[in-house]
């Protein structure tokens, strides 16, 4: 599986994430089975494994730091043109949002289920 996870953006992501006080605590980790359940609601708009392309953006295979910062922005800030993601992101802890970001980032778009139109 191809993982794109440049160290530079990891540092940048860490910098972004240290803005929130929770980042000072040890990061909670979740099992694969737990993440599957945690991510369960995402598929309803983003497709199974977040692969679907359409009016709702694909999230599978996007860089973890990009997904994480987007989710945290939805939760903590006013984002332009947001409709529902703020209301959803506020239901998860920062650690959960970061874990979800890593979970979707790790999905290989080139393998298995082809994204459907």
């Amino acid at each position, binding site marked *: 599986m191809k993982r794109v996870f440049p160290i530079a953006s990891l540092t940048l992501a860490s910098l972004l994430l240290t803005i929130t006080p929770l980042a000072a605590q040890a990061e909670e980790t979740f099992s694969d089975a737990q993440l599957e359940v945690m991510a369960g609601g995402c598929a309803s708009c983003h497709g199974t494994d977040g692969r679907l392309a359409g009016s709702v953006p694909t999230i599978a295979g996007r860089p973890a730091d990009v997904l994480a910062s987007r989710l945290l922005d939805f939760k903590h800030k006013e984002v332009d043109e947001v409709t529902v993601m703020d209301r959803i992101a506020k239901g998860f802890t920062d650690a959960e949002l970061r874990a979800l970001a890593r979970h979707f980032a790790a999905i290989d778009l080139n393998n298995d289920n082809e994204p*459907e139109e």
Partner: protein
Amino acid sequence: MNHRHNRSGLTRRQLIKGIGAASLLPLVGSAPFAIGGQSAGRVVVVGGGFGGATAAKYLKRANPAIEVLLIEPNETFYTCPFSNLHLGGLREMDAIAHGYDELKDRYGVRVIHAMVEDVDADAHKVTLSTGRKLDYDRLVLSPGIDMRWNALEGYDEEAAEKAPHAWKAGTQTELLRSQLEAMDDGGTFVMVAPENPFRCPPGPYERASLVANYLAQHKPKSKVLILDAKDNFSKQGLFTAGWERLYGDRIEWVGLSSDGRVTRVDADRLEVETEFGTVHRADVLNVIPPQKAGWIAERAGVTDDSGWVPVKAETFESRQVADIYVVGDATVAAPMPKSGFCANGQAKVVAAAIAASLESRPAPEAYWTNTCYSLVGPEYGISVAGVYRVQDGVIAEVEGAGGLSPADASDATRALEAEYAVGWYNAICQDTWGTSPGSRAT
């Protein structure tokens, strides 16, 4: 041949080979682990809607070695979500139709098109309408709803052929649509809306909206009257504002405290009577009656005296019968609403819980989200969202999350939500059945 690997590492070819071997064995009385030791247990899923189909697929995703049998009477499943668009003349039936090929071919679910007639929970067996009996290690019921006939005096199955409920999609949807098409201009579409709890809280009001939209364009002298057994309904402020904005005074809503509760239906005369004796005559009459869990739930012994199914919050296992899990509209899962989105999410928790149970390990913690989209008009979307966790043994909304679309949103935002509603429909159908009508303009 392209060998594609699924998440567990088994190739598609290995999967199909496994199923082929299984189908050679007689199912009656077979021990679930007899297939050369490969099976991790057998799960029978009853109902192929948002709950059942998702449960079947996600069980296979969790562990392809679990034998999954899906029992669904229909070969084509028509979704209630977006059926209001057919009623409003905005979509054909094939745009809400879904089949089971993907579940069979890609995931190796064994799909049997039959009804389940009996459940013997002690013997862990279900009996099909074909007479065949199936053993199970775990049973998932996703039976949807059934109407409580005669809860409204005069509204029985026969009456539904004249005054359709269209609260199960398919022929009822087509019937109601044909009645609307045949209605004379100047007629009144009367809808009887039920008390809580019922399938899809915003559904009746989206229906009224899209019927009003159709009437505005094709039968402009016609009106919509909603007679409601409630004083409050889902997204009420947003709907009311949207109706005024888009349809003027075309939609009239009469709430419970204004004598809106209907107690008697005359389907022959298309008349309804309220509890205080007011009679309303309709040109097209849509009665959405009081409901209960799909009847097989009662047969299985999982319903309580409310007619719905109480479940354990953490796993959606029945509170009354071991090894039976229930998902979707049939359950008592408040504050989660009865929606396809919730059924799909509950099915994922159940799949994880059953996979864990079959391996004697603890189930993961449950998470659910829900977003109910409603189209007040083809380019005017509104939504209500919720995030849910188990707190103190019951399902609770996560505080600070969820909520309604803003009351003062711009037209651009309403249009964007309408687009996302379509995106949601395509995605959830792909996630559930693997089929998606694709992006279609409404």
